């Protein structure tokens, strides 16, 4: 993969590397030419890797003490919180880690949207990313069920019931998912099994995601192809490693504030009440990171159509490389797209807000308008924009802007002042 052949110095190293080229891989990763104009929005890939590993390590530890049984799950979580050494720390890292993971993944996704990182030749990276995101949602949803609190139970009931909207086989599918006639012990044990499995699937996909990234190399804020290696690039180590480490530490400070000082603020109080099939909570709300999709689901009056709309809202992202017809990647050179991009960001935030509110009156109306706009953005605005938009001329390289041109890229401006 590397442009130059790596030869280990030691005799043993050479012997080993001829049989399994791990050292070649390590050298490729260290030398990997990276555009030097990457900004801090690019540090979230590393942050996400950290989040995944944190979730796996804390999750494994929790699984050693957790009991996946409807009568014992809630108690075993309290056992972890009270009697397991630093159990409270591990559990709070894991539960807040899920929120931090989603916070980082949303920033990562919206960075791709802004800089057009999903465009040719990076479609496969993008699609693998969408699959990872889907698996993350599944893992998070099932993980939320495990403490067997009221929100766990009723959230599981509401979400699994969505499948009953499928004509003819819907009810059968739901009972198959439950392993019975309601959410109960068989549901809990299978959710635990899948919650344990999915992170490792994600880990495998992350390897593919990074592998696919290393073929074309990173996109960058200017969005033009970079010759590599060249003076436009820096080796991954130490330049990007140290920058990622810095950003990761900033992220960890925020993370730590949640874990140590408001560990329950992102959760719902009702989940500290043990699951009770006879008592329905006043409002059943999913975790904050699923709220925009929950809003889309509820904004459609028909149940089946609502489920279809919710799924399409995610799957439409997979088609994005072909829906966005513009050849220009970075929004920096697309004045109109840039405005629509920010409208989309606001739209999704609004969807998240109304997702937490009761689906009635003005909230429902807002949710419907925002849902409609979400689809209009991807299905109408993006395809049309590609041919209609007047874009700003691209610089020739990330270090040399076009002569006389005044690109708006701040990166380019900075270069000018330096040269």
């Amino acid at each position: 993969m590397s442009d130059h052949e790596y030869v280990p110095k030691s005799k043993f190293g050479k012997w080993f590397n001829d049989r399994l080229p791990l050292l070649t891989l390590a050298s490729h990763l260290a030398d990997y030419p990276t555009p030097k104009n990457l900004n801090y929005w690019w540090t979230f890939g590393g942050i996400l890797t950290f989040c995944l590993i944190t979730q796996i390590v804390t999750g494994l530890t929790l699984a050693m003490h957790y009991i996946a049984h409807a009568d014992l799950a809630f108690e075993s979580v309290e056992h972890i919180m009270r009697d397991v050494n630093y159990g409270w720390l591990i559990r709070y890292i894991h539960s807040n880690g899920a929120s931090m993971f989603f916070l980082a993944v949303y920033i990562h996704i919206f960075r791709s949207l802004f800089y057009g990182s999903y465009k040719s030749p990076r479609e496969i990276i993008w699609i693998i990313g969408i699959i990872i995101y889907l698996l993350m949602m599944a893992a998070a949803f099932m993980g939320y069920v495990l403490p067997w609190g009221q929100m766990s139970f009723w959230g599981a009931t509401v979400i699994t019931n969505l499948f009953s909207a499928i004509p003819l086989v819907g009810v059968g599918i739901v009972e198959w998912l439950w392993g019975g006639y309601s959410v109960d012990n068989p549901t809990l044990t299978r959710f635990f099994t899948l919650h344990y499995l999915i992170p490792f699937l994600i880990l495998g996909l992350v390897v593919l995601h990074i592998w696919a990234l290393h073929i074309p190399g990173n996109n960058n804020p200017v969005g033009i192809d970079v010759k590599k290696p060249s003076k436009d690039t820096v080796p991954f180590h130490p330049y990007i490693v140290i920058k990622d480490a810095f950003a990761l530490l900033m992220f960890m400070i925020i993370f730590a504030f949640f874990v140590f000082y408001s560990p329950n603020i992102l959760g719902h109080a009702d989940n500290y009440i043990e699951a009770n099939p006879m008592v329905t909570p006043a409002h059943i709300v999913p975790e904050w990171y699923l709220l925009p999709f929950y809003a889309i689901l509820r904004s459609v009056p028909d149940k089946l159509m609502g489920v279809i709309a919710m799924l399409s809202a995610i799957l439409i992202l997979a088609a994005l490389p072909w829906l966005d017809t513009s050849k220009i990647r970075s929004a920096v050179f697309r004045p109109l797209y840039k405005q629509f991009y920010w409208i989309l960001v606001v739209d999704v935030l609004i969807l998240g807000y109304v997702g937490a509110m009761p689906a009635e009156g003005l909230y429902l109306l807002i949710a419907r308008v925002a849902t409609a706009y979400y689809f209009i953005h991807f299905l109408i605005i993006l395809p049309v924009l590609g041919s209609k938009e007047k874009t700003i001329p691209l610089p020739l390289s990330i270090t040399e802007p076009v002569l006389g041109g005044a690109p708006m890229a701040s990166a380019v401006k900075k270069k000018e002042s330096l040269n």
Partner: protein
Amino acid sequence: MKNIFKITYLIIFLLAGISQINAEEKVDLLKTDWSFKGLFGKFDRGSLQRGYQVYTEVCAGCHSMKYVSYRNLSEPGGPEFSEEQAKAIAANFEVTDGPNSDGEMFIRPAKLSDKFVKPFENVKAAQAANGGAYPPDMSVLAKARSGGVDYIYSLLLGYEDAPSGVTLDDGVYYNKYMYGNKIKMSQPLMDDAVEYSDGTKATEEQMAKDVTTFLMWAAEPHLESRHKMGFKAILYLILLTILVYFSMKKIWSRIESEV
């Protein structure tokens, strides 16, 4: 560097929004100073011990606390009764143990390792004795209500005569802060309901504050060590971040570019 601030602002903005959403159900709850809030928040030992007294003399008649053990009463970060005191407290209660070598169940005084003895055998028995309402277990109650300790404190002090137009059934009481304003628990705290041994005057507010502090500890027995560790962890992270920042500046100064 400008970008870092942008990112940080955005994150804080987002998270503030999220916590806002989760806090939307809050009505105007009564406020009091909780010693356990804030970066260095600690429990007030005296308040915890008094709170235990209120719990055991007033609440424990109906409310269980099934995840807390007698040994917890003498552990650091809690009421910190001495081990002898905790043993004596436990010995006041009886638990069924066994079977013994004859195959018989027997009754013995509770030990430090036992969980708090429940007032009722099961949920049905609790409901039967309380007009059909189940007095919730209090182990994690302070975390199980939106509004947390402020809500519990307000509820304890929120009993009022029902406004005109509201009719109450027998055994139902009016409470300003209860969801739906109707509650099956009669007003639990009246002035001097307990007699504090440390001389503190047992006003309604004082007892409500003490017992709520005790409930917070019961729900989060490791709160103090969490706050202590959090301060050290965050301080360490900030120092490390500064060091890494300067390392980064140094490394990137080798090439002509801006980080």
